[in-house]
């Protein structure tokens, strides 16, 4: 076997994949061939340089942010029907609970207002500033509820759209 053939086995030799007779034969050749020994040394040096290529080591804060971003992007696997989920979380969500209360109070108030026996209604302008502010906050809250509902609908739409684009999930 000539030098060229031996040189083709040098990487296998360095990997430890060359065994038995082939390994012994190469070692015997290397013992008396300075050219192939130099080639072997060059390959070793190349692999050492590749292995020593620097890679950045980000700080812990980078990984915290990394995970936070991923959590925001990940879509929970099973999703409960939206209405059920909302109702189930109601005791844990004071804001919507307050809003529901306000809606009920308003409904009672409007029913009472449309009744023919109602007492004369107070002019809104007669409310003091605190009362007007409270009323406007209630209205803002109701508007926010509508907005939240629209955001949830948009999120659902984005989810459906992304699944439609990605198609059936497959390991890529």
């Amino acid at each position, binding site marked *: 076997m000539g030098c060229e053939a031996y040189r*083709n086995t040098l*990487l296998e030799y360095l990997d430890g994949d060359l065994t038995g007779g082939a390994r012994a034969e190469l070692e015997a050749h290397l013992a008396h061939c300075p050219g192939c020994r130099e080639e072997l040394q*060059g*390959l070793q*040096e*190349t*692999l050492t*340089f*590749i*292995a*020593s*290529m*620097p*890679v*950045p080591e*980000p700080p812990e804060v980078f*990984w915290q942010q*990394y*995970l936070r*971003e*991923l*959590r925001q*992007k*990940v*879509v*929970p*696997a*099973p999703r409960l029907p939206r209405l059920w989920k909302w109702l189930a979380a109601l005791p844990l969500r004071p804001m919507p609970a307050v809003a529901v209360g306000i809606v009920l109070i308003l409904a009672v108030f409007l029913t009472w207002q449309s009744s023919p026996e109602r007492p004369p209604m107070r002019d809104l302008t007669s409310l003091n500033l605190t009362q007007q502010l409270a009323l406007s906050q209630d209205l803002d809250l109701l508007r926010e509820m509508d907005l939240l509902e629209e955001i949830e609908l948009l999120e659902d739409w984005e989810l459906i759209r992304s699944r439609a684009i*990605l198609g059936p*999930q*497959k*390991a*890529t």
Partner: protein
Amino acid sequence: MKEAELALIARLRQGDQSAFDTLVRQHQKDLFRLAYRMTQNVEDAKDLSQEAFLRAYRGLGSFDERSNLSTWLYRITMNLCLTHLRQHRSSGEETLPETYADPSPKSLDELEEREVQRAVAEAVAELPPQQRATLLLRVHHGLPYREIAEIMETSEGTVRVNYFHAVAKLRSQLKGSRESL
């Protein structure tokens, strides 16, 4: 596959958020390093490795439990990196390798070593993506040819040939840059 990995997969399939956190913490550094070595850009490495986690999570249904979890994650990351490199090449964008060496060399030897390191980084960046991928998985991640073949979705023979060509090219470049110093 190890029992702990099977349990983690089961929790992930149940939508357990803490299982996802565990998966990320266990593999984030390996995937980031792999993506960095492929793209040689920190931002790209971050985006690509994060995308790999998202795809893995969404594609849990297709995961074959006879496979190794890390092999599967490497495969997803590698495919994303190869697609990214193809898109950059076709759009004509070239990313210069970022270097993280000490900005002030203390000796002539250090300066020379840095020059050689730069030459190696550039030579690695110029390798065809399949060869680069094989080389990095073998040298940096210490993976056996069989696992690299699984990641690259090719035969073990092709992996060996790619590895051989990649090292030979770098050997020749390194020799050239040494002689020019």
